[in-house]
């Protein structure tokens, strides 16, 4: 079962103790980081449960804690994965999604199965020597809701299957 109480408590401690970068001794700052990380773990379970309940589908959701520094094992190593985007705003939004990937070509499909335009763009050299590519696609998310996009890396087999599907659709 998920639980948001540990994160609540960690946040309360941090706010009470003025836990701003640099205004505590390093070992204290490290402890704040430990409390936050420990608090976020059960929240991930809570979010997974909520998404499973809302979508009526149980999945092994993966939370990429280092997406901000472009590290995500799922998007970088998987041939196929799903992206769930939750919008906490009370109005629909369009958001450009960026995910670190290894070089290649990808098919992205929206919740209705339609292909979405996507690009793989180079990251600046100065950012990282190891991870150099980002997958980019526009996502539309409803107010206080979520959208699920599916991403497939083009391999020789998927490319051929895609071409065959496209040709058979055309002939029909």
């Amino acid at each position, binding site marked *: 079962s998920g639980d948001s109480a540990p994160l609540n408590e960690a946040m309360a401690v941090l706010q009470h103790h003025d836990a701003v970068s640099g205004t505590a001794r390093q070992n204290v700052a490290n402890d704040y980081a430990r409390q936050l990380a420990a608090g976020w773990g059960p929240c991930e379970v809570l979010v997974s449960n909520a998404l499973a309940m809302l979508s009526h589908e149980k999945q092994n959701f993966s939370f990429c804690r280092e997406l901000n520094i472009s590290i995500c094992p799922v998007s970088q190593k998987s041939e196929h*994965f799903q992206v769930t985007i939750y919008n906490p705003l009370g109005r629909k939004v369009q958001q450009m999604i960026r995910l670190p990937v290894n070089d290649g070509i990808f098919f992205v499909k929206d919740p209705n199965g339609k292909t979405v335009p996507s690009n793989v763009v180079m990251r600046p050299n100065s950012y990282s020597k190891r991870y150099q590519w980002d997958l980019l696609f526009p996502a539309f998310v409803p107010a206080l809701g979520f959208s699920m996009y599916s991403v497939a890396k083009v391999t020789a087999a998927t490319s051929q299957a895609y071409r065959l599907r496209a040709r058979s659709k055309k002939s029909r």
Partner: protein
Amino acid sequence: SHVLFIENEYIRATFDSGTGLLMKIENMEQSLSLPVSQGFFWYNASTGDGKSSQASGAYIFRPNHLKPMPVSRWAQVHLVKTALVQEVHQNFSAWCSQVVRLYPGQRHLELEWMVGPIPVKDGWGKEVISRFDTPLKTQGEFYTDSNGREILKRRRNHRPTWRLNQTEPVAGNYYPVNTRIYISDGHTQLTVVTDRSQGGSSLQDGSLELMVHRRLLLDDGRGVQEPLMELGTGSTVLGRHLVLLSSVSDAAARHRLLAEKEILAPQVVLSQGGSSPYYYW
């Protein structure tokens, strides 16, 4: 030798092809054009002087000079243009770089900066800022917010409720910026929306600056007993400034919606697929 620019249907950002620095922003929807020079600078942190032994530290911002040093007067640039994004990658130094980015349909310019680890082998603590210089006649005034709720007018070297004897011409004019800072001449407004709380100011008319990172060598004597010297993952910071150029009458509607979207940004969760039906009962 050619003009370097990125544009979408609303915004065009032009760069000096000689220096690689941002030169001009145009709002094509409102036919507004503003020369904007943006770059990174650093203040040399005070270690104490004849007036006071106070050193710059975690709690205290006290540069020892009025004028900051440029990180670099030019940037090595790389242009990326695809159907979904246009970017100018600027590399200022081994520890300072930036991506200026435009997506289709976007009414703001996105500046994603990466700063650190700040070198201090020269024995100087450094407080790094991003500064926007424009010809706007702002008459010593600028605006900063308090959690996006109340935007307060700030006037250089002035406090509204007492007569100020300004003893710190830089730090004494710095204010908290929780989500946005802006300057205007009454007609045109330049707004910068931040992705985190920072310190900011306008130390010259038409100029706007935000502190993005700092690394110091001395403790400021306020109880921490350690200099602000991050050695771990926090030694490099990656952040974003969202820049809006618009008419004053239109600005509030734009920066409020933009800041709201920035703070309550969509959350991304990934899965490998292969789901099974789930019923909460």
